[in-house]
């Protein structure tokens, strides 16, 4: 069974990669399995300087999902390039850097910093992190802002850019078209839905940040819908994510129009989630009549 997929900048041996923020920089999960098994690795968000992030509690459990408000904690792009990229480069796996920021300048700074290393293969432009207060949210909900940041980052970077879309919008197709026109090489969708949990005991929002991003199986139908809609209006490839926890889920995303997928929250339930899904994928594809990943992409659309 041919699981390989070729995307701008990425020769994937299979379509499954861990989602940004759910896999750190790979060190922890490298203690569970060989990271070379993965289709790619998407690193945790990088910002211009190191950030501590939000105060705790930062996560809450919800029905079939979780809320998180980590707040982009990371050591800053320079330390990531110096300390984390070399570690991942030791594995036979493409590396995608997740680029975040609060200002246009910060996005450009982070993106161009990755030009220095030959070991990063693509950027995932995180214009949608719902937990950044200073302005990150606007980039992800206004088509023009999203287009602007995409353009600037494309100019600054010599890597393919996958723009990660927020689902917290009224018109996801407008966002997708805007960033495609601005030069995005691909899309990554979806990021988390903004949610909240109130703690009955304290009578206050449970997360110190009050709101957090909803992820996990609960959001899968929203992700599938958005990918399906966007697929009908753009021609750049989509990395799909949102609640994937099985090879069947992967196929559902492929049918909806994703060319590859990322697995986030499921890693927390099962640290072997990614290799387990990769191992199960050939049989699932076969069961539903596919002889490769490529042929399944977008097949949910044909009449």
């Amino acid at each position: 069974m041919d699981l390989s997929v070729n995307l701008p900048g990425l020769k994937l041996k299979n379509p499954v990669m861990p989602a940004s923020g759910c896999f750190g920089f790979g060190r922890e999960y490298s203690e569970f399995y060989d990271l070379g098994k993965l289709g790619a690795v998407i690193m945790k968000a990088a910002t211009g300087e190191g950030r501590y992030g939000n105060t705790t509690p930062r996560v809450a459990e919800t029905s079939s999902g979780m809320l998180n408000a980590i707040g982009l904690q990371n050591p800053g792009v320079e330390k990531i390039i110096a300390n984390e990229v070399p570690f991942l480069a030791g594995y036979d796996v493409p590396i995608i850097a997740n680029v975040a920021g609060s200002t246009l300048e910060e996005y450009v700074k982070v993106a161009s910093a990755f030009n220095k290393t030959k070991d990063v293969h693509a950027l995932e432009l995180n214009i949608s992190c719902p937990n950044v207060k200073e302005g990150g949210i606007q980039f992800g909900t206004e088509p023009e802002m999203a287009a602007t940041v995409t353009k600037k980052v494309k100019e600054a970077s010599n890597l393919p850019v996958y723009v990660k879309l927020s689902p917290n919008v009224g018109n996801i197709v407008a966002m997708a078209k805007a960033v495609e026109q601005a030069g995005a090489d691909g899309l990554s969708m979806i990021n988390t839905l903004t949610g909240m949990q109130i703690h009955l005991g304290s009578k206050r929002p449970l997360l110190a940040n009050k709101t957090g991003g909803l992820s996990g199986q609960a959001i899968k139908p929203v992700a599938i819908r958005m990918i399906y809609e966007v697929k009908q209006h753009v021609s750049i490839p989509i990395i799909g994510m949102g609640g994937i926890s099985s090879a069947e889920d992967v196929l559902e995303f492929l049918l909806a129009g994703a060319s590859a997928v990322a697995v986030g929250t499921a890693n927390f339930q099962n640290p072997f989630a990614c290799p387990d899904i990769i191992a199960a994928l050939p049989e699932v594809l076969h069961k539903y009549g596919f002889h490769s990943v490529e042929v399944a992409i977008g097949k949910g659309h044909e009449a």
Partner: protein
Amino acid sequence: MKQRVEMIVEAVEKIALDTVEMKLSNDHVAKNAVPGQFLHLQVEGHSLRRPISIADVDAEKGITTILFKELGEGTKRLGAYQPGMRINALGPSGCGFPYQDKSIQKALLIGGGIGVPPLYNLGKELSNHGIEVISVLGFQTKDSVFYEAEFSQLGETHIVTDDGSYGHKGFVTNVLGSIDGYDYYFTCGPIPMLKAVKEKLADKPGYISLEERMGCGVGACFACVIPADNESGYRKICKDGPVFPANEVIL
């Protein structure tokens, strides 16, 4: 490489108010666990795992004991597990109480509520290594007290209850003044207690075990950080902890 760990429930017993003692069999865990480590347990129907300290191990029989309070839905569901059922676990996780490299003569264990369990495993180990153990254990009420007999076997044990319904009345810090002659303290319990203990025993070296809501439980998600006096400015409770030198973390 870390393994998949499946544990089999061997026994489940209510040992105090809403408090369950559960014995789980798995050789890997029982052989490798050190005091202070925890298990990250997958409870059926829940999207996040539950971190629960290892309270005791019998390496020979391959049995690990956990003690937990039925607080929310996850621990209630776990408490309803029956012998023979399987639990997927991550662990033994985190870093335990360091004691071997210190030349400790006498150790003070200070536990509050569900912070008591990891101290039992520690106390037993210390005892086995010929280190004298004094325990101060705080509970809300008489109904909540557990493992008094077990700790008493290890050495002098003081029970404190918030309402005085058993043992001393008040907080664990109330009795700390009357205890002396120990080299190190080891404590685990609610944050306000840990803060009070740290302050009261500021002149003593000590180790504290912390709790925080966790995502991954392996160090990948940054859910469980605590501000720290180190270069990065933080430590991860699930990976760098849950045990930290008292002076390293900022409570």
